[in-house]
C-alpha cells in the first residue's frame, strides 16, 4: 500500500517538469511567456473552483476571517507561485528541463535548511549538521555534473 503511494508521489512529482515544458511551448504558441503563465494560473483556478465545490461544498470565506489576518497570508503564496512558475517557463528553453529542475531544487533545499536553522515562520530550530552540509555539497556536485554534460 505504501509502495502504491510512493509511486503516486513519483508521478505527482513528474508533473512539475511536464508542466514547465508544456507552459514553455504554450508561451511560444501565444507569443508571450507571461501570457502562458497567466493561462496556466487561470485554468488552474477554474479547476480548483470545481475541486473546492465538489470536496468542500463551499467557496466563500467570512470577511472577518480575511481582515483578522495579515495581508501576506492571502497573497504571499500566489505571488511566490507566480515567480516560481514564470521562472520555470523562462529558464526551461534556455537551460533544458533537467538543469532547470535541479537548480530550483538546490535553492529549495538551501532555503529549507535556513528556515530550520533560524526557526523562521515559527518552525522549531534544527541547526545545520555535518550530514546536512554534505547533502548540500552532494546536490551542488549533482547540478555541476548535469550542467557539464
Amino acid at each position, binding site marked *: 500500500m505504501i509502495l502504491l*503511494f510512493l509511486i503516486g*508521489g*513519483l508521478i*505527482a*512529482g*513528474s*508533473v*512539475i517538469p*511536464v*508542466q514547465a*515544458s508544456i507552459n514553455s*511551448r*504554450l508561451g511560444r504558441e*501565444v507569443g*508571450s511567456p507571461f501570457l*502562458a503563465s*497567466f493561462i496556466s*494560473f487561470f*485554468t488552474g*483556478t477554474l479547476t480548483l473552483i470545481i*475541486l*473546492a465545490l465538489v*470536496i*468542500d461544498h463551499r*467557496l466563500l*470565506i467570512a470577511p472577518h476571517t480575511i481582515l483578522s*489576518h495579515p495581508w501576506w*497570508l492571502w497573497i504571499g*503564496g*500566489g505571488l*511566490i*507561485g*507566480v515567480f*516560481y*512558475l514564470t*521562472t*520555470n517557463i523562462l529558464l526551461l528553453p534556455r537551460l*533544458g*528541463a*533537467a538543469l532547470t*529542475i*535541479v*537548480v530550483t*531544487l*538546490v*535553492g*529549495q533545499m*538551501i*532555503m529549507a535548511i535556513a*528556515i530550520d536553522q533560524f526557526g523562521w*515562520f515559527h518552525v522549531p530550530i534544527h541547526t545545520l*549538521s555535518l550530514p546536512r552540509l554534505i*547533502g*548540500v555539497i*552532494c*546536490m*551542488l556536485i*549533482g547540478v555541476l*555534473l*548535469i550542467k557539464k554534460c
Partner: protein
Amino acid sequence: MKKRTYSLTFLFLAWGLLAGAASPIQTSVNTQLREVVGSPYIAALISFATGTCFLALIVLLIDHTIKIDFAQIRHMPKWIWVGGMLGVVFVTANVLLLPVLGSAFTVVSLLFGQMIAALSVDHFGLFGVPKHAMNWPRAAGLGFMILGIILIHQF
C-alpha cells in the same frame, strides 16, 4: 561571445536558485493559510486566484494586451492547455500523500519524480524541448542529487 553565453548561463542558474529558494516560503505561507480557511483546496484556490490577478497585471504591463488569437487555437496541440491542471494535480497529491507517507517520504518521492521526468523530457525532447540525451555524468548527477536530498532529510 562564448564567454558571454557562459556568464548568461550562470545568471540563469542564480535566478533558478532564487525561485527555488522562494518555494519553501510559499509552503509555509500556504500551510498557515490552509489552517485559517480550513481546507487545502480553498487555500490553493486563493493562491491560484491571487496569482492569476497578479499575472493579468504583469501581462498588461509587459505585453500591453491580454489577447489570445482564437483563430490559431485550432492549430495548437490539445495538451498545451493542461499546464494549470497539472499544477492542481501537484497540490492535491501533496495533500493526499502527506498523511500516509509522512513529510520525508513525500518530499523525496516528489523530488525524485521531478528529476526523473525532467531527464526524460530532455532525453526524448518531449513537448518541443530541445533534445539532450541521457549519459553517465547526468545519471551520476541524479545519484548525487538523490543522495544529497536523503542526507538533508535524514539528519
